[in-house]
């Protein structure tokens, strides 16, 4: 039985993989020398990590059967806090030493804020039994409000070069954001597959009552998941801050629904219990290929937005056909 399930999930990733290969071949033929080029791959690997990390933040909450609609607002708020710390603490002509420590302090503060936001989300969801959609919708509105009041809607920009390096430089040809994304993805995969926390995360999504009765502290486990989700959005906000060289309330608002879409495309079950990092990575690469390909073809980004939606529906249709084949 479990063997069979494993096969199905392999097959699901396999479907995505085939679609990915077909798309890459199509774009390579339509855009000879442009799509399959180092430049394009580099620009893709600079764009994909922030959305990828945000998607991981979304996915882990979906595995528990929840959702986190506050990841973008949380990322923006911690970005703004980091920006303000750097703006206010850096002297006019800082030494390298000062710059380094202030950047580190700012990043630490941003991550602490993100973790706190996660804690609040987890607390509301687990102790009051509020549905995750509503709780995080509420905190998202609140956080966006706080960000707007702090910045008065203005953009904060102009950061030290040390910070900008995080989002824009490469180490031996590999963009730093990609390195961060790979590191984060491995970390999340290890947590999900090799730790007690991962086990309770999957269990909560499959059957919350059974989990409770098996002696797991469901409240604590839920809070942990949302803290991790908050932290991940904090990491994404560091990359966003450095890539945009600015912070503002309302950045990346189109990412929110996209992260849900990619999670599900990658095989995460919106009802909880299932979801793998490898699926998410495949999903994000797939969508990035569509965006970059259409972009090179001179098509509007809105066409790729539409295709993302249509692709998810098509993949769900394929999964339905497959499920029926397996059960009958």
């Amino acid at each position, binding site marked *: 039985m479990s063997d069979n399930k494993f096969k199905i999930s392999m097959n699901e990733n396999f479907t995505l993989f085939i679609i990915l290969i077909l798309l890459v071949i199509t774009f390579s033929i339509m855009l000879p020398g442009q799509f399959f080029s180092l430049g394009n791959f580099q620009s893709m690997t600079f764009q994909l990590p922030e959305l990828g990390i945000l998607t991981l933040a979304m996915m882990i909450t979906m595995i528990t059967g929840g959702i986190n*609609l506050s990841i973008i607002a949380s990322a923006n708020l911690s970005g703004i806090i980091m920006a303000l710390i750097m703006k206010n603490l850096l002297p006019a002509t800082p030494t390298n030493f000062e710059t380094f420590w202030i950047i580190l302090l700012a990043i630490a503060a941003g991550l602490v804020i993100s973790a706190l936001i996660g804690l609040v989300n987890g607390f509301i969801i687990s102790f009051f039994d509020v549905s995750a*959609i509503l709780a995080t919708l509420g905190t998202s509105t609140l956080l966006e409000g706080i960000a707007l009041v702090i910045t008065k809607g203005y953009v904060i920009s102009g950061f030290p070069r040390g910070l900008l390096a995080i989002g824009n430089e490469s180490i031996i040809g590999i963009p730093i954001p990609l390195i961060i994304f790979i590191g984060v993805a491995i970390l999340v995969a290890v947590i999900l597959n090799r730790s007690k926390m991962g086990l309770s995360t999957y269990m909560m999504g499959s059957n919350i009552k059974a989990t409770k009765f098996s002696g797991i502290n469901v409240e604590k486990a839920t809070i942990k998941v949302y803290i991790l989700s908050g932290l991940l959005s904090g990491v994404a906000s560091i990359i966003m801050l450095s890539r945009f060289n600015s912070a503002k309330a309302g950045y990346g608002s189109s990412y929110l629904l996209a992260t849900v879409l990619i999670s599900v495309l990658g095989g995460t079950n*919106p009802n909880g219990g299932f979801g793998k990092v490898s699926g998410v990575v495949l999903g994000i690469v797939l969508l990035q290929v569509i965006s970059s390909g259409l972009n090179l073809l001179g098509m509007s980004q*809105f066409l790729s937005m539409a295709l993302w939606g249509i692709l998810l529906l098509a993949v769900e249709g394929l999964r339905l056909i497959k499920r029926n084949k397996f059960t009958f």
Partner: protein
Amino acid sequence: MKRQTGITDIFKNNEFVLIVAILIIGTIFTILKPNFFSINNLYGILVSNSYLAIMAMGVLVVLISGGIDISFTATATVAQYVMATIIINNGGNMFLAFLIAGLVGLALGSINAILVYTLKVPSIIVTISTLNAFYGLLIFITGGKWLYGFPMWFMDKNLVSFQRADGSLFGLSMPITLLVAAVIVTWIILRFTTLGRKVYALGGNPEAARRIGINIFKTQLFVYGFMGLMAGLASVIQANIMLTVAPNALIGRELEVLAAVVLGGASLAGGTGTVPGTLLGFFLIAIVQNGLTMLGISAYWHKIFIGMVIIVSVSITAYQRKRNEEKGAVIDVR
């Protein structure tokens, strides 16, 4: 049986709490700004929120059925573009405008229903996908151009006009009339028809609903079709108030409407929710925004207040339900 009364109690409480909250907040605003409690201001609140409230009626029906619809702002925007393009190029009348937008909304809503029913995927996922598909294709095809230059008759905001004793005009405005009509129709369907009962049954327990012979597909077709229809009609009102059609006027406000409906007592789990509750929830958020604006508090604070209102109210409701469930242990056999 006991559990049943427990739920209806909270439910009554919820509407009662909303009325009390509206009265308290209204009184505070009136003391601080006597203008707040004036016909003009209250009327203004109603008009400027009318189209969102009409959409809220559709969202309410979807939530009662146990589903959720995120795509309705995209549906409304598509309906608006189709309607405006035809009206601006070929002329017509108000009835035609509503007819076109309503039909487009109905069609897109039906697509949602078919996908939700056949794919057996949670409606939130389906409607996020269709939001992307509808809106993405619309902007791809139209290039996201703003539309204006509506014919003269479209600019009239009143259905019927009357003259006051001092000679000034006042009238039965279109936004208010349509809002009232949408509210009454939704209320009647939910309260007095078998169709309405089926929607509640579907949301309360889909498996039980199927076993007693309710046609799930037809019910969902109604639910999402109705949502689309409301979105389409509301989009005409929005165009009528603004006199332009912009690609970003409605999109992004879906969660705002959802929050108001939930504040009004509809549960995301399905099976509960009423028209009066929804209106009260909507009105509460609307007067908070309006009052804060009148007090000269920067609009940036609005989100903080609304966020707090949502968090506190859903937490209280959920906590009450949790305590009630703990009192009488319920064994749920599935």
